[in-house]
């Protein structure tokens, strides 16, 4: 087990992602962030807070559970369904930024795109992830990446956040 990102690396990455999102979307009032529970939702809150400071207005932020749209439900025991909360502005016509912790096979994001389709039709959907570890199984890429971590398929990448685990860090574990 080794530490790939420390607390300071994570906070720098989140600040950079926040700037990049604002740079890529000229009208910041149209941006909505949706995090994918559990850790993506916390990251979305942090990014929204940083972006709010830079843009000097509040950025709508919510969370989107994608469990019911997964294509691997039959391959494991049923997962608990997590809460969903969509900001009052909705997603219709907005610049929607999905936020997740680790981008791996891309299947979570595929499910998230289906889940988004159910609540409305955003103008664009963009993806921000803290870590991109590779090994994609679908044609999906992130627009904003905190850190590209080349890993082997036998490793697992874990994000710990102070809200949940008491510490900010990204770990790489060998099975």
């Amino acid at each position, binding site marked *: 087990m080794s530490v790939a990102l420390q607390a300071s690396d994570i906070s720098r990455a989140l600040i950079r992602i926040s700037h990049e999102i604002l740079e890529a979307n000229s009208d910041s009032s149209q941006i909505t962030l949706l995090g994918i529970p559990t850790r993506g939702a916390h990251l979305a809150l942090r990014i929204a807070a940083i972006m709010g400071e830079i843009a000097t207005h509040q950025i709508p932020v919510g969370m989107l559970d994608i469990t*019911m749209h997964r294509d691997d*439900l039959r*391959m494991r025991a*049923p997962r608990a*369904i997590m809460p969903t909360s969509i900001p009052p502005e909705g997603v219709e016509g907005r610049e929607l930024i999905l936020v997740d912790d680790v981008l791996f096979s891309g299947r979570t994001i595929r499910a998230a795109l*289906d889940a988004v389709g159910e*609540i409305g039709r955003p103008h664009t959907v963009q993806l921000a992830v803290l870590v991109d570890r590779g090994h994609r199984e679908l044609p999906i890429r992130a627009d904003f990446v905190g850190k590209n971590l080349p890993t082997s398929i036998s490793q697992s990448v874990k994000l710990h956040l102070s809200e949940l685990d008491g510490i900010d860090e990204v770990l790489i574990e060998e099975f």
Partner: protein
Amino acid sequence: MRHLLSVSDLTKIQAISILDTASELARISEGTVKKLPTLRGRTIVNLFAEDSTRTRISFEAAAKRLSADVINFSAKGSSLSKGESLKDTALTLQAMGADAVVIRHSASGAPQRLADSEWMRGAVINAGDGTHEHPSQALLDAYTIRKHLGKGSSDLNGIRIAIVGDVLHSRVARSNVLLLKLLGANVVLVAPPTLLPVGVESWPVTISYDLDSVIPTVDVVMMLRVQQERMADLYFPNAREYSRYFGLNSERLKSMSAHSIIMHPGPMNRGLEIAAEVADSARSVIVEQVANGVSVRMAILYVLLAGKPLEAGNT
């Protein structure tokens, strides 16, 4: 969890997780697109060997909202009415590849028989068997109570519930007593002694024969239907007397505490166990129970069917 046959098969954690799942799924029922792809390609058979409105359409709606294929199968208009045995029916369902069977049967234990047999491999969901149990109804009742009176808590700790009426014939009462107790609620049964089952003193409940003294002390009044179709014997002198002693009328409605709610599993005998104006009053959550039923049954189907299917022969 492979089948849902009885509330006694559930742990407190499982029961709460079904309720939590249901409250997330309730969101879907409120949204514009009332459909999820989760059970696409699964086949669910509604096998109703006894009449039902609410439970059957509720399971059907739940299955359809999760994109499962639904086959409805009722005693009338099928070979059940020609005297086909449960075994042959089950073998037919297995041959058609049913992933789950939702069964309502007048014989207590019919779902258990189906689940224990080698006749079919799918999940068995008890939708009411004789006078035994009706677990999905108990779960939707608990969900409704938690939503109104739970104050954000995950269980029903300390909530007082009166179950009033024909306990003897009521599978709803049996399942509710077990589940409400599991979730920490206090249950009092109110009924004429003739309509209480033998051995009720061993149930985890208190018993009263006086509705008027119980009503002001409880948070939930759950009325049971007087099951005239199961009453060949004389259990009470006449309907008017029953209604006077054990019916919920507008007088008794006034003595209920300020936050309390009225429930009924349906179908109601208006004017017998519940007065029409009480059933339609602001305290009544009877129609909401039906809506919640769909969410809770979606949660049940999700928990039983969404996960990895068991290998053949592995029970």
